Each structure stands twice: as C-alpha cells, then as structure tokens.
C-alpha cells in the first residue's frame, strides 16, 4: 500500500477527572494534531473517561530501554532514607 494514505500514530493521554494526572490511554492514527485530538476524543472518551486529552506524536517519545533498567532504577534501592517511614517517630509525638 502507498504511504500516501498511511496516517502517523499519536499517543493519547487522558485526564480522568479535574486535577488528576494525565495517564496514557493508548494511541490513534491521525494526519495532524487537530484530527488526533478529535480521534482521541471519539476513541478514548466514549464512556466519559476523560475531561481533558493530550495527544503527542508517537515519534516524539523517547523511552528508556530494558537495558537501562539496572543503571536507571536500581541505584534508588539503597536510599531508604528517602522514605518517611525510615524515620522512627519518638513515642508520644503525634505529628512531625
């Protein structure tokens, strides 16, 4: 098939309620940003799943690779002092 009629993909992020973070919902094919937005609305908003939508060209996303997993995320493992429950609260004190 010719590439003349092959639309690029756009990643769709939907915000499920006001104030919530946008979450990845899936993708749509569309010729441009405005149509991507309309398509995303029709595909991912049919059941009132969204109050706001972002669309991003799929090619614009850079992702870490599975090989990155160790070096990227494991160094966080031994830094338990970042978590509040690492710290014992002295007895008798209700709130810090």
């Amino acid at each position, binding site marked *: 098939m010719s590439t003349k009629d092959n639309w690029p993909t756009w990643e769709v992020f939907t915000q499920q309620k006001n104030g919530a973070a946008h979450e990845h919902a899936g993708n749509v*094919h*569309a*010729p441009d940003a*405005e149509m991507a937005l*309309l*398509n995303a*609305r029709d595909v991912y908003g*049919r059941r009132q799943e969204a109050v706001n939508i972002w669309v991003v060209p799929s090619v614009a996303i850079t992702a870490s690779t599975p090989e990155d997993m160790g070096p990227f995320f494991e160094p966080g493992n031994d830094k338990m002092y970042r978590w509040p429950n690492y710290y014992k609260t002295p007895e008798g004190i209700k709130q810090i």
Partner: protein
Amino acid sequence: METNIALYKYCVRIADTSLILAQRMCEWCGHGPILEEDIAMSNMGLDLIGQSRGFYSYAAKLESKGRTEDDIAYFRNEREFLNRCIVEQPNTNFAFTMMRSFLHGCLAYLQFRTLVKSKDDTIAGLSEKALKEMTYHVRHASEWIIRLGDGTDVSHEKVKEALENLWQFTDELFEMDEVDQALIKSGIACDISMLRAEWDQMVNEVLAKAKLERPLGGYQSKGGFNGAHTEHLGHLLSEMQYLPRAYPDAIW
C-alpha cells in the same frame, strides 16, 4: 394554533431530522475510510438517536394518546415525516456526508443554542445536551471540509460536488410556518430566520478555508418540514420501519 399541538409538531420536526440523519450515519458503520472515522461517525449517530428519542418522548407526552417514541418513529409514512430534506440525502461518499453534517449541523447548533433559553423547560433541557453534541459535530465536519477542500485535487472535486448538490437544501433549513410563529410568541421556539446571518458567516468561513466557492442561485427545495420530501426518504423509511410494521404486536 393551540400551543400543545404546535409544540408536538415542533418536537417531531426536530426528532425526525435527528433520526433520519442518524439513520444515514448508521449506514457508514463498518464502511468508513478509516477505523477512527467509523468510531467518530457512530458517535454522531448515537448523539442523533439520543436527540430524536428525547424529542419524540416529549412529543408523545404532549400528545397524551399513550404512544411511545417508537410508535411515532416507526408508524408514520413518508408524507408524515417532518424532517428537513437535507438529512435524507444519501451518503454518496464521505465528502457528501461531511458536507451534509456541516450544513445541517451549523443550523442545528445555532437553533439549539437559542432553544437553551426556551421558556419550555423540557425543550431547554433537551437543547442543552444537543447543543454540546452539535458543537462537536460542526467542529468535526468543518475540519473535514477544510481538509478535503484543501487536500488533493480529487478530494477538492468531490467536496465541491457535494456542496453544489446539497446547496439546494439549504434555504429549507430556515423555513418556518404558523407552528413556529405560535411558539415564538410564547417564547418557546426560536426564530430561525434570525439565525441566517450567523449561519452564513459560519459557512462562509469554513468554505473560504476549504477554498470552496459558495454556490449562487439554483433550485431550492421546500416543505420537508411539512412532509414534502425527495425520493430518498421513502426507501430509507421502508428499511428502517419494516420490522415493527411486519410484526405490530411484537415488543422488541
């Protein structure tokens, strides 16, 4: 004219127009140019069915003969259908469908926007929902008219042909009679003749972006809203209504 009789007719006109267009949208489902568009056109179809059900139900209530939305939709003949003729025009191709949605949609949008302020609470409520829906339909159709008009030579020709063929059903969008007059007086209906200038502006703007010229003159159809239709409606109805008519005792 008695208000309830006028209001019944007013509601049926709106409901018929929405339903017949919905029926045309149904024909696309599974046959659209791309999956995303199948979904979009189905969404519009669903909105339109919803609108028709709302207005039929209210008409049935006003009539108070114990009829249901389905009785009104399925048991009237072509001369009794009160939709604007533009919506019964066949899909022909995607450009026709989008142009039909656009030309009719602009008026429906303006009409519901005015009816939101109707003194009749039910009409106002139904219109509030329909207004949101038509806002989107117009946006969707406009985007397509622009892309088809300013896309390729082929698409330009097709959308131009659609415009020229459908133009003859545009004056009719603004037709009014004593039904409207009676209801305008009581603040229930809206005076669509007042919406013409804004409709012109909406249409001209999109046509300009689409590099299309607005047709001049030519034949203009009349009277769909009083049962004077094109040949297409009878076929559409015979398909749509056949089951309940073949088995009038059945409940589905």
